């Protein structure tokens, strides 16, 4: 049995082995919580693409708040549209009030809301960060920037997917994806499902409930079918605030959602707040049987 673990954003500069150890130890903690015996024969695969993604981000030169202020909106319309769509949804679903956003607007700035008003879009991002993502290495803008590159740029997706594909084997495998990693897993499984002896697919802190993302994936499907796709999230995790249900990710057979995770990390999104959840670990254990 193998467990394929696919990490998310903001992992550049980290050591692959160190990250892998964190994931495995956290999952062990979860097994303890679930009162499940730690399996004796299991191998872990941890495809690492953090540095590669950092390089892509650096090369992409996507407009930042500063450059947009200097040159005006419209430098990369696709990116700006993506940001606006995602942030609008995050604001609405995350319960961020208009007043909170307005408080983040520069004094005297236009209040018009629209694609031309990058200031408003940025204000939503700041309001979200103030309320929901206080962790210093994670901002909603950073997250969306990296996700955008992955879903909008074929070369970026191909390179990252290839890192995961090279770890695939013919052995029974459980796939766990976190954050952007769950989107990566979705795409890899969609393309490679037939060559994989998949025993279970588990996503945690998964952003596929964001329409700005799900609408870029073509016709959606349950890539784990006929095995179970289990999706766990903390309902205070801004990245994963929508369940993968008929409204946000309509597939058959339905995905099993578990929204009762209490992620104890600062931004409610970290992997160490997910894999130690008893139900998540229990799903991994069940998939091994």
């Amino acid at each position: 049995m193998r467990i394929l673990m696919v990490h998310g954003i903001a992992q550049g500069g980290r050591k692959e082995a160190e990250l892998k150890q964190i994931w495995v130890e956290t999952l062990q903690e979860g097994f303890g919580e679930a009162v499940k015996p730690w399996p004796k024969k299991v191998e872990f695969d941890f495809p690492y693409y953090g540095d590669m993604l950092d390089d892509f981000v650096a090369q992409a030169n996507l407009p930042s708040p500063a450059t947009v202020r200097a040159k005006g909106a419209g430098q990369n319309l696709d990116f700006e549209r993506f940001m606006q769509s995602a942030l609008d949804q995050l604001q609405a679903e995350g319960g961020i009030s208009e007043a909170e956003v307005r408080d983040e607007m520069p004094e005297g700035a236009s209040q018009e809301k629209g694609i031309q008003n990058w200031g408003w879009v940025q204000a939503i991002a700041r309001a979200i960060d103030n309320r929901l993502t206080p962790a210093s290495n994670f901002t909603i803008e950073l997250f969306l920037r990296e996700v955008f590159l992955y879903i909008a740029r074929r070369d970026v997706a191909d390179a990252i997917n290839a890192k995961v594909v090279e770890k695939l084997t013919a052995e029974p495998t459980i796939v766990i994806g976190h954050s952007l990693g769950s989107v990566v897993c979705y795409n890899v499984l969609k393309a490679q499902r037939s060559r994989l002896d998949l025993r279970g697919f588990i996503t945690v802190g998964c952003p596929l409930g964001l329409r700005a993302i799900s609408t870029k994936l073509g016709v959606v499907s349950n890539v784990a079918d006929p095995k179970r796709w289990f999706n766990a999230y903390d309902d205070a995790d801004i990245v994963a605030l929508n369940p993968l249900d008929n409204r946000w990710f309509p597939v058959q057979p339905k995905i099993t959602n578990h929204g009762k995770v209490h992620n104890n990390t600062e931004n409610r999104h970290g992997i160490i707040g997910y894999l130690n959840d008893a139900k998540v670990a229990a799903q991994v254990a069940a998939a091994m049987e």
Partner: protein
Amino acid sequence: MKKAAVVIGVNKTGGLVPLASAAAEADRVADWLAAEGFKVKKLTDAKGAVTSAAVAKAVAAFVTPVPRFHLLVVYFSGHGYWQARSDLWLLSGAPSKPQEAINLRAAIDLARYSGIPNVVFISDACRSIPNARGGAYVDGIPAFPNYDDIVSESKIDAIKATSEARPAYEGDIGGTQRSVLTAALMSAYEEPEPKMVVQLVEDGRQIEVVPNRRLEDFLQRKVDALMARVDPSATQTISVNVPSAEEVYIAQVRRPPAAPPPTRGPAPIGPGPPAPPGPARTSPIADAGRAAAAAVHSALSERNFAPRAAAVLSFDVRTERSVARRMPDPKHDHFESQTGFFVRGAIVHEAVASSFRRDLVAERLEAGDGADRQAIVRLRLSAAMEVPEKSAISVTLRFADGRCAVLAALAGYIGHATVKADGLTNVSYVPSTNHGRWQDYVQRQGELDRLRAMVAVAADRDAFHLRSEREAQALAEHIRVVKSIDPALGLYAAQAFAQAGNDTQVALVRAAMADDIGADLFDVRLLLGRRFRGGDLRYPVVPFCPMLTQNWNLLVGRGIPLPGPLEEARRGLCDSLWTTFDAEAGTIVLDAVKRGALR
């Protein structure tokens, strides 16, 4: 493969003559598609009115923000109009309620962004021009939702019962009232010719299908055969545009059980086998478009398209005349200011440049006589006999009969315009002989002029469709003149690229044209996905409205608001390829231009 279908049949529309077959045909199609595994929503007026809201709701059930289906078929049988160069499917409340119709061109435009990889529209309806003023007010709704998040373009196949401005028929087929196109279409899957059939493996099963790409020839021959029984004096030329890939199909082949041996008594009147290959009984008007389109396809397939290739592309007399009428007049080859228009077929009463650049003026030098003597309109700086490089401005021409046309005046180009009874049928932009572009143009003059004219004839008949990526590439190469792009060909090409769902080529054409002429043509900007407004699009847009009539249908779906005068004037659009307003609407437009409300 997840498939869905919205099937609509409307027998009775307002005061129009009730149809006998539309609702029943929708029943048959719904049953047929359901048996093929489609999820079907059927709307017929058998038990009540079919409304545009109900159609939009049925479409929205399948076209969701997160795409769930791989194929969507939208079928309509009923009365139809051809208005402002779009098909209008008339629902129960039309024409007295202008919104109780589906605007097919607008629907197709939004379907491109539905997220469903393949959408097929089947239109078994007339495409007649409304013969009453009330009909001209019918504009219909797009019926498809507009989801801004979806950026990938769907492939849209369209199968229409007849050619533009022509009727479609129903009649007794095999003892039953049938719509001719629908009967022909369904028979394609029961009695296909061997060359139409492709074998596929789906869900581990080998199946026989008829790809959409292989339908057209059969359908036309079958329609001809059925029409020969229904009404031998009438013709029905179908219109088919299928940019989808070879493996895209609607239904499997389901051959009926072998017929029992013949018995005594009279033979039943049935659809019978397809007509043997032979000349189709099509209308001459559509034939010119098809002939021109075929010639363009042939030209694009030439490895080295050159004057030699152009020379061998000859047509029947009628088509040749259509092509010749669209060739620029070589006698009128320059202006001192290098910029202006020659207009044949109409007397020009007035020419007004918009106030977008107050230093540029349009001078009517000759009114023309509406026949051989052409009208002459020159553009220049008010203070000098020149037009600065990369200047572009809207010019409104008022003809003696009160109609108006709106064109882009482009620095260094002479616009050769042709007006006919329907309105402005053609515009060719050719470099002025005293402009630097002339030397490049003259090297390929014969080829370019003829290609442009052939494309114009095909586009005028709604027959100019690209059939492959290779053809798109060839067209992109042929419209280039060294560093510039022939403006009219660029416009037609952008149209064809957009119809084929090739956003990349539209963007390339737009970028090259804008760099050359210093502006975006309204239509090309419009066709550039949903980016009409955007900061990186730094060029001004000319003219102030679509130049091609058909593109007016895209404005609502793409959320592009029109200034009040244009919103009012759009009711008076003529049935011409290039935007022409009738006299009443022309007055509204010209007044607005003069007071600076349209720039």
